[in-house]
């Protein structure tokens, strides 16, 4: 199988042809600024509002609760910084989890340097937030709870509804980074008690550079980006019309493809089961069931992730790792450490994220390739050598 196999859909997805087709007129002849009064503007404005409607309906929000941004990171920054700024007279305490995306984690750390207090609630060995710890963390000066909907590395889906209830009953604003969940699992901002939600188009076969922040109507969030009166005076900047149209189309397609999510789950389980059965000293990271359909994250003991990534890449397979060496730091993924993995096991993790385009044949090839790569790296690993010697002695 000489072609390339893309198993990094949590990083980004292939944009659908239908999405490109929907965008194309707005990249060419329909170039009006939606803020303009003339017919060019009206045409673009109508296209953006149509996308807004589709997306709002998809998460059970109202049209005027959807604000387009440049992507997930901007949405996270906006939600967290603006709540902090708005509520600082009430309190300066924010609750988050230990497994957030860097866009949330670093924003919280930025605020911590500015006098805010951050409590990071722990997760269990599968990456599920400890609700009792969350309840105990709430103080009279808590102004925000920000916990991700589903984790980007290990795919664990959080008990969002319960977290929302806890926040609601305490009168605290609840933000969730749903970048990995949106378009993959059902989201209902009403039932889930969500006040603010971040999502991104390129994780659901849409274009890069466009995302959204859902803002519950009862919250008058101050802008992060000041300027013109765009997006009901909340987010300045000429609208990314082609991007927004693409996001709308991608959402429409995701609504359909989510009906077949069980097919992706089946394939993912097939991949996980084969690896765990056929490659010794491997373990699944994250919750077996409360897991995003396409996510498989497996640690292979005694070997290091970047080496693995490079060798499978040479065989045409694109994946990802939580190893330090791949991240540019010396510490492995904070998520893998938060679920209690020892450093060496975290270094040996491989994340494979499937899409609806992933075939069983590709997964078979992946498993066979992994067997060879893991064997090869273990044959040159001093940790494996030591472990095997110890086994013999026992």
């Amino acid at each position, binding site marked *: 199988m000489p072609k390339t196999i893309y198993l990094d859909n949590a990083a980004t997805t292939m944009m659908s042809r239908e999405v490109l087709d929907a965008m194309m007129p707005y990249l060419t002849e329909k170039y009006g600024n939606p803020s303009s009064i003339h017919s060019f503007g009206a045409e673009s404005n109508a296209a953006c509002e149509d996308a807004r409607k589709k997306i709002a309906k998809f998460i059970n929000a109202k049209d005027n609760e959807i604000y387009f941004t440049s992507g997930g990171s901007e949405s996270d920054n906006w939600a967290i910084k603006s709540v902090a700024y708005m509520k600082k007279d009430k309190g300066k305490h924010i609750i988050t989890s230990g497994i957030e995306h860097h866009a949330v984690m670093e924003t919280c750390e930025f605020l911590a340097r500015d006098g805010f207090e951050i409590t990071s609630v722990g997760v269990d060995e599968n990456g599920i937030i400890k609700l009792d710890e969350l309840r105990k963390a709430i103080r009279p000066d808590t102004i925000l709870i920000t916990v991700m909907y589903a984790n980007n590395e290990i795919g664990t889906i959080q008990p969002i509804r319960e977290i929302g209830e806890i926040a609601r009953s305490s009168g605290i604003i609840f933000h969730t980074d749903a970048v990995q969940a949106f378009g993959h699992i059902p989201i209902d901002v009403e039932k889930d008690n969500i006040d603010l939600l971040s999502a991104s188009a390129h994780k659901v076969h849409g274009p890069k550079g466009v995302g959204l922040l859902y803002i519950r109507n009862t919250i008058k969030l101050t802008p992060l980006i000041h300027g013109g009166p765009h997006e009901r005076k909340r987010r300045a900047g000429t609208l990314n019309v082609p991007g927004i149209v693409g996001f709308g189309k991608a959402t429409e397609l995701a609504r359909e493809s989510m009906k077949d999510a069980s097919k992706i789950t089946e394939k993912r389980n097939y991949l996980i089961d084969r690896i765990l059965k056929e490659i010794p000293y491997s373990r699944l990271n994250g919750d077996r069931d409360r897991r995003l359909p396409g996510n498989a994250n497996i640690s292979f003991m*005694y*070997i*290091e992730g*970047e*080496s693995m990534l*490079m*060798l499978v890449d*040479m065989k045409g397979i694109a994946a990802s790792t939580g*190893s*330090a*060496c*791949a991240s*540019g*730091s*010396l510490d*492995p993924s904070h998520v893998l450490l938060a679920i209690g993995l*020892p*450093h*060496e096991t975290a*270094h040996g993790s491989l994340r494979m994220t499937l899409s609806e385009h992933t075939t069983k044949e590709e997964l078979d090839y992946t498993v066979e390739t992994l067997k060879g790569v893991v064997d090869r790296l273990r*044959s*040159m*690993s*001093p*940790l*494996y*050598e030591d472990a095997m010697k110890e086994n013999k002695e026992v």
Partner: protein
Amino acid sequence: MQYSEKVMDHFTNPRNVGELEDPSGTGTVGNAKCGDIMRVYLDIDENGIIQDAKFKTFGCGAAVATSSMATEMIKGKHISDALKLTNRSVMEALDGLPPIKVHCSVLAEEAVRAALWDYAEKKGIKIDGLEKPADDIHDGHHHDLQESD
């Protein structure tokens, strides 16, 4: 981050991978916490010439490549020449490493020195210019040391 062709060559076709039976000296450095461990085996003859060198490494592409290159560079050399191996010379031989990977080359230098120390201890000799290796090179300042070079 981009590896040089030489790094890729030594990563995909590493030289001297394996163990030596009854080695004259072995050295293991690094720790799993930081994601790289290197073990070097040396076979040294009565004239102090390194007849063979083998390695095993747990680590990234750069760690494997520097292990491979370092063992190549000391094979056939006298121990006094092997002592002159520096992380810089290994890096240069590999046409450079990305800045965040420089610490991997320190590992290779330290592993060779640790194996030589083991040899000297076994033989009951003292090698000029060789000091007892630190238990854990990552406890030191090596990570920051070479990056500004």
